[in-house]
């Protein structure tokens, strides 16, 4: 802790905020971003069984993932307030037919788990 404090003091004396933000000549910028890990499972409301083939979309950007056999999904996305997720059955009758559902997440922290139950059509 003391060592870090000293480093920042010496860095600060050279009057630039960029000292601790760097990239190698041929590398990327360092990732200082705060994102959010959303994990969850989609199940049928009437049977409680997991549903495969549900498209889970982050409404404010282009990200989505499709649930697998176990109905589970997992994605990192931009950490925004009141994040809106959309659940949509995209494989017609193949794994049953379910009504589209939206959910707004009030996120506290960097990770959230959502259990979603979808109604059959």
């Amino acid at each position: 802790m003391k060592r870090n404090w000293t480093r920042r003091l010496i860095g600060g004396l050279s009057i630039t905020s960029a000292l601790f933000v760097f990239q190698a000549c041929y590398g990327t910028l360092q990732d200082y971003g705060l994102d959010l890990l959303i994990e969850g499972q989609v199940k049928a409301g009437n049977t409680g069984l997991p549903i495969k083939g549900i498209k889970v979309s982050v409404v404010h950007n282009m990200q989505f993932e499709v649930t697998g056999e176990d109905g589970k999904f997992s994605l990192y996305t931009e950490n925004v307030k009141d994040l809106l997720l959309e659940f949509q059955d995209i494989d017609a009758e193949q794994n049953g037919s379910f009504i589209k559902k939206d959910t707004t997440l009030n996120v506290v922290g960097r990770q959230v788990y959502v259990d979603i139950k979808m109604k059959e059509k």
Partner: protein
Amino acid sequence: MISSLKRFAFRRFKESETKVHELNYLFWECTTRCNLNCLHCGSDCSKDSEHTDMPLDDFLKAVDTIETKPENFTVVFTGGEPLLRTDLEQCGRELRKRGFKWSIVTNGYIYNEQRHISLLNAGIGAVTISLDGLRDSHNWLRNNKHSFEKAVNAIELAASSNRLFFDVVTCVNQRNFSELGQIRDLLISKNVKAWRLFTIVPIGRAAHHPDLLLTDSQFLGLMDFITEQRKSKAIDVKFSCEGYVGKYEPYVRDAYFFCRAGINIGSVLIDGSISACPNIDRAFSQGNIYRDNFYEIWKTRFQPFRNREWTKVGQCKSCKDYIDCQGNGFHNWHGTRENVLVCHNGMIERALNSMNA
């Protein structure tokens, strides 16, 4: 006066950083396969690489030895072309589980919308895409007639994400030098916020193409171009950290020159070698993950990187700027190490002298 104080403080800062040598930036040369055959490639990659991709588990065993992880610790996937690995997203997810951030350097050729989304889902945090000129000059350097449109498509996708830390890099050479203003305008029109310019070091395939290198007066022109662009702030333009540029130091980057290879930057190369930036002479490797504990090597070796007195040879021996330059970027020392490969400040001074002559 203030300038001298800043330089003094920065020297002390470099000493302190070198002493602490906190690892927070790790290259992983995860493949040497590549879908392009660029004229300037520093790593001599090919479609039929002699190396197979490093298995993820082998890399994870190495990173699992790392005892302290700063919050911004970023693992940079490089190659070759990292997107050729179909398990890239799985690699990224495993790193995120362990508390590391991750990013890729790509030529953008196969970076499409589907891949963009799957990378974001897997927690990618930063992307660097190469654009080496307008259509003809980019395609020439990249040796592929479709590479420009593919790279621009990738740039549009990456620029559309608020999550990504994203920049474009351009290797400045004889063919694109006169296009820099147009490239800047193109990038601004694509909503690119950060643009990094570097020159080509005569290593790898570039050693056989001296026409790729800038003349002294062109290099001086590049410094002036970057200086001017940074005043306008239309896009965050900077010179890479490849070398020390003397009187231009305060104007072409956010901070003074500091080659952090082996000080904050490490690497795991395709054959398991432990080193710093992948473009550094591989004879400087400090160990190998297949026989050594990665983090022990990081903590206890890397002496040539952390004490660069050995670079006081050749033209560096009596250089008045050595205290700030310390032998230039580490990748400028190849082969016999009798002299630095490129002296950027020397190029500037020669160009200024010839202007004044």
